[in-house]
């Protein structure tokens, strides 16, 4: 039988899905054990047990000075920045995507402009943002918006253009105005695509968030990682990295669920 025709059963599929995770864990445990047996003071690869211990300490014990549990405060601050940035990007991107996709006049005026804007490396703008918007929340949110908005605009305007011309013509023969075509035909049809674009933008959004927090902040997941880096506190860093990964995965999963739930007619497109 050809390899391309061999499909795993349910149990085997589950086993295969878990296998890489288990392998990575084992590799880490072995590596950590080798280093620790050579030098018990080694900080680079703390034992898995140490990491779990640190994890428990981080999520339950408050800061010695203020009594706040920093882990949750960091999480809340970062999620707020991320949500605000991505939310603004999605909203503005949707608006411009519809306008550029539907109106040839706007397309002529804006499509090339957005294409050029999207080539600017957002991190290169970070110093300007810090100078213009200060070191507070605003500059971090703006960095996420600048980093993700051009992609969302370009993706959505392309999706609007891909709506079959037949549907647009049909709507016109039913007497729909440009406004009605935008809100009743194009908008609902690109909504699943918007969720898709947001899902793809989450990766870059986290990157920009952590970069901004690393440089200037006093709270946030990225800030904490770069703070404890000075003490080589690998157990804390690993805890935060695992937590960020989990948050990103959970967001992606929820967006996918939302898309299935609210746009059942677009099932095959997702």
């Amino acid at each position, binding site marked *: 039988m050809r390899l391309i025709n061999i499909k795993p059963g349910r149990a085997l599929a589950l086993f295969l899905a878990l296998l890489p995770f288990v392998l990575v864990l084992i590799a880490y445990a072995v590596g950590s054990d080798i280093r620790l047996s050579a030098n018990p003071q080694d900080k680079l690869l703390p034992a898995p047990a140490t990491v779990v211990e640190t994890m428990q300490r981080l999520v339950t014990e408050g800061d010695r000075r203020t009594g706040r549990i920093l882990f949750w405060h960091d999480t809340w601050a970062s999620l707020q920045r991320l949500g605000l940035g991505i939310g603004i990007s999605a909203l503005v991107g949707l608006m411009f995507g519809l306008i550029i996709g539907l109106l040839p006049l706007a397309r002529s005026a804006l499509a090339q402009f957005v294409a050029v804007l999207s080539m600017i490396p957002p991190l290169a703008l970070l110093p300007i943002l810090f100078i213009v918007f200060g070191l507070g929340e605003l500059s971090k949110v703006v960095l996420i918006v600048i980093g993700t908005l051009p992609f969302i605009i370009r993706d959505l305007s392309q999706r609007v253009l891909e709506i079959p011309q037949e549907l647009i013509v049909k709507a*016109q023969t039913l007497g729909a105005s440009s406004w009605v075509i935008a809100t009743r035909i194009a908008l609902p*049809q690109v909504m699943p695509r918007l969720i898709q674009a947001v899902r793809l933008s989450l990766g870059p959004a986290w990157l920009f968030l952590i970069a901004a927090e690393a440089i200037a902040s006093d709270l946030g997941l990225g800030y904490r990682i770069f703070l404890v880096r000075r003490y080589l506190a690998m157990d804390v860093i690993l805890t935060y990295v695992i937590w960020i990964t989990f948050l990103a995965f959970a967001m992606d999963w929820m967006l996918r669920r939302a898309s299935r739930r609210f746009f059942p007619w677009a099932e095959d497109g997702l």
Partner: protein
Amino acid sequence: MSFVTVQDLFQTYDDRPILERVNVQVDEGEFIAIVGASGCGKSTFLRLLLAQEYPTRGAVRIAGAAPAREPGLDRGIVFQKYSVFPHMTVRENIVAGESMRTRWGRFFGSSLKAARTRADETLARIGLDHVAENYPATLSGGMQQRLAIGQALAARPRILLLDEPFGALDPGTRLSMHDFLQDLRTETGMTVFMVTHDLEEAFKLGDRVLVFDKPRWDPHDPSRYGATITYDFDACDGGIPFQRLKEDTHVLQAK
């Protein structure tokens, strides 16, 4: 005065003539079938009727009105596919036939309720009442086309344009769609233009069959000349009206 007047119509794409000097007059309530080889401007002609394109020369007038510059309420269209809105349920699609022309594109409150009742009547007539809550993607090809025709008629257009509406259907479904279309026509008396590849279908459904072809042909440059209407058949009685005429006048009838 005829209902639809096509006068001296030319269409050229980048110096390549597609249609040349098309003239035709159509009375209200006629069913016009349009046939011709691929690339002979049938679909271009339909797009010009729809006002999706603007002709290089000449004009299409409906009931003597000024030539339209964009598709509008007076022309209904059913394409081979993508003719219904995939994000609306079957009932919403029919309601959209009436609501798209409003300011917000939808009905509210009592007018929504009334439109839904009317939509349900339409759905019962076109045999789709049992799938009113479904999305079009779950329907078969024939059902989707019935829905598309029902939606186009809900807007009450002055002429109905069909662009190979049954081209993607299997033969059995196609026959039942013919019955469906003929029933609807006797009911509404609508003026219909239908582009089709199927000659049999054209003569079965049409009152007239227009044939598009190139009257002049340059063997060294096949795209040199455009197409026009080369035949205009009377297709009542399956395309043999003169036979019927002879039988009516020359054959002794039993009294």
